[in-house]
């Protein structure tokens, strides 16, 4: 009978070494320009050997003062700035912002606008998750995924270009509608994209799901408990990966999401692998929603006809004041005249819940516009998750978080 082999646990043994022989801790700065940080995030790490004892994310390198800018321009003028929040899903940001302002104006949009917004937001989700998966794959050493997912993303960008005139910064939504109606045959082409996309998506996911290297790098790495996910305000796939069954499209439906059938995937363990699985399933569900929306695509106007009435000038002044007479002109220069009050609206964006808190004192310019950014909240858990993990695991954790610094720093 051969003797039983035991592998000594060297890591545990180091604790027994007397203090004078212990090595000193090392501090290492990762970023702000590092391929695995997905933008200008800097991680100030304190290392004991290869294990992190402290992680301090330093954000703000992409701070452009969007909230300050919003206070100095009309509601309509701010739409292009929302593109630059989560620049991987501008269509979803446009929609979240315009719904927030419509809530303030108490404006109901027609069914066609809602359907267009749902289709574009879900397409944006697919394109954002494709990017997220591709980048995650690269982070843990799987280059091929990126090539396949970018091919599909390119097809989506063709569709975006046809619809909005721009590939990246779409600025498509308007307050009370969208910028223009969908081109002829566009919904048909969206449907065709979905049909050919589903088998390719399975191929892409098959490259990772049972990939031994990928599972070794992600399973049981960066575990976030359900309680922590709620306490740290995590939203989106990162919260669902930890088993928090929350999806604003289901829980507080907006833009007609209650009409569509879809499932909300949740993880069980809350590790990097669960977050990956949730994103993969979400793409399937998004395609399901798009196919339903295209099938029952409603006719009618692509803007709210009563929008102008809501922004109307004071009746009594029309015959005595030049400005009231040239209302269309004033709508552009002074902005849509909103009632005073405050609203808060959150939409389920690809990265999580994107919220807009608008305080209005009346008039065409918001008094305060706060952007609740999902990436910012998701990143705030990093100091807790990273401690105790290896440096190479940090790369996997960052990849699995799928954040965008444009949104985090605003």
């Amino acid at each position: 009978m051969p003797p039983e082999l035991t592998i000594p646990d060297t890591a545990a043994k180091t604790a027994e070494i007397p203090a004078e022989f212990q090595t000193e801790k090392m501090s290492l700065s990762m970023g702000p320009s590092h391929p695995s940080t997905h933008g200008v995030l800097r991680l100030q790490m304190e290392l004991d050997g290869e294990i992190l004892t402290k992680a301090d994310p330093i954000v703000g390198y992409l701070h452009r003062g969007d909230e300050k800018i919003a206070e100095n321009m009309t509601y309509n003028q701010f739409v292009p700035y929302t593109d630059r929040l989560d620049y991987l899903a501008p269509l979803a940001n446009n929609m979240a912002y315009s719904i927030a302002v419509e809530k303030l104006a108490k404006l109901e949009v027609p069914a066609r606008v809602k359907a267009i917004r749902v289709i574009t937001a879900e397409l944006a989700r697919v394109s954002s998750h494709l990017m997220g998966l591709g980048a995650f794959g690269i982070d843990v050493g799987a280059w091929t995924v990126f090539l396949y997912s970018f091919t599909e993303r390119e097809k989506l960008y063709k569709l975006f270009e046809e619809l909005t005139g721009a590939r990246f910064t779409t600025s498509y939504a308007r307050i009370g509608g969208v910028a223009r109606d969908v081109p002829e045959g566009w919904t048909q082409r969206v449907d065709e994209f979905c049909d050919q996309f589903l088998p390719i998506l399975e191929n892409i996911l098959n490259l990772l799901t049972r990939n031994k290297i990928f599972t070794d790098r992600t399973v049981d790495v960066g575990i976030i408990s359900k309680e922590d996910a709620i306490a740290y305000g995590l939203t989106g796939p990162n919260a669902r990966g930890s088993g928090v069954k929350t999806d604003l499209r289901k829980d507080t439906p907006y833009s007609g999401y209650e009409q569509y059938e879809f499932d909300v995937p949740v993880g069980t363990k809350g590790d990097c692998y669960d977050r990956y699985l949730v994103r993969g399933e979400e793409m399937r569900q998004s395609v399901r929603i798009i196919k339903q929306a295209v099938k029952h695509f409603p006719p009618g106007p692509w803007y709210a006809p009563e929008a102008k009435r809501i922004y109307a000038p004071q009746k009594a002044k029309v015959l005595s004041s030049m400005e009231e007479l040239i209302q269309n002109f004033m709508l552009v220069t002074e902005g849509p005249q909103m009632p005073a009050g405050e609203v808060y609206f959150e939409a389920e964006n690809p990265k999580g819940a994107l919220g807009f808190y608008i305080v209005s004192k009346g008039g065409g310019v918001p008094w305060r516009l706060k952007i609740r950014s999902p990436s910012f909240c998701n990143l705030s858990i990093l100091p807790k998750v990273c401690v105790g993990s290896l440096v190479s695991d940090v790369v996997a954790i960052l990849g699995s978080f799928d954040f965008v610094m444009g949104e985090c720093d605003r």
Partner: protein
Amino acid sequence: MSTTAVDAKSALKAQFPAVTDRASLDWPAVNVPVAEVVAALKYLRDTLGFDTLTDLTAVDWAEGASPRFTVVYHLYSTVHPGYFRVATDCPDDAEPAVPTVVELWPAANWHERECYDLLGVKFTGHPDLRRILMWEGYPYHPLRKEFPLAGIEVPLPDAEIAAETGTKVLPAPMAGGPFVASPGEINLTEAEPRAKDESWNERKAKPE
């Protein structure tokens, strides 16, 4: 507005008599005196099911207003989906401060740092109240109403680089515009920053 959220408001008011209604166009909202805000939020979290702090921010009601700063908390319930808004006025207009809620929600850590950074509201008891979006040592709070849109000239964060390059952080040209509208009652010449910039015209070329 779900019924549970309305119930939550009356339950909160029964527990804390000093809580008053706050005008809101969507979700239930209350004003809470600063002394009771932590207790009220704890009650909302533990008893009424608002388990997530989804957003924390402050509003600056401009110089001269009193109270000048209002801290606004947005709570979300994963149990009975819906939001709840809690607002509290900072008692001191010059040195605004409210107690921290990091003990209740770790999520508040970064939100409060951001609020301190951009608006200068101090959160007493915060474990690590550093700037987060602007750099350490930045002298202003840019989201305050008196801070100009274009920015203010300040030295670079790194003194060594500043000495080497001789550059500074400069305010944006054209008053941070061009935006065609400004809040308040000002005429179009003032509101239109392009009109203000008289360094170039039809005869004199625009400087590079």
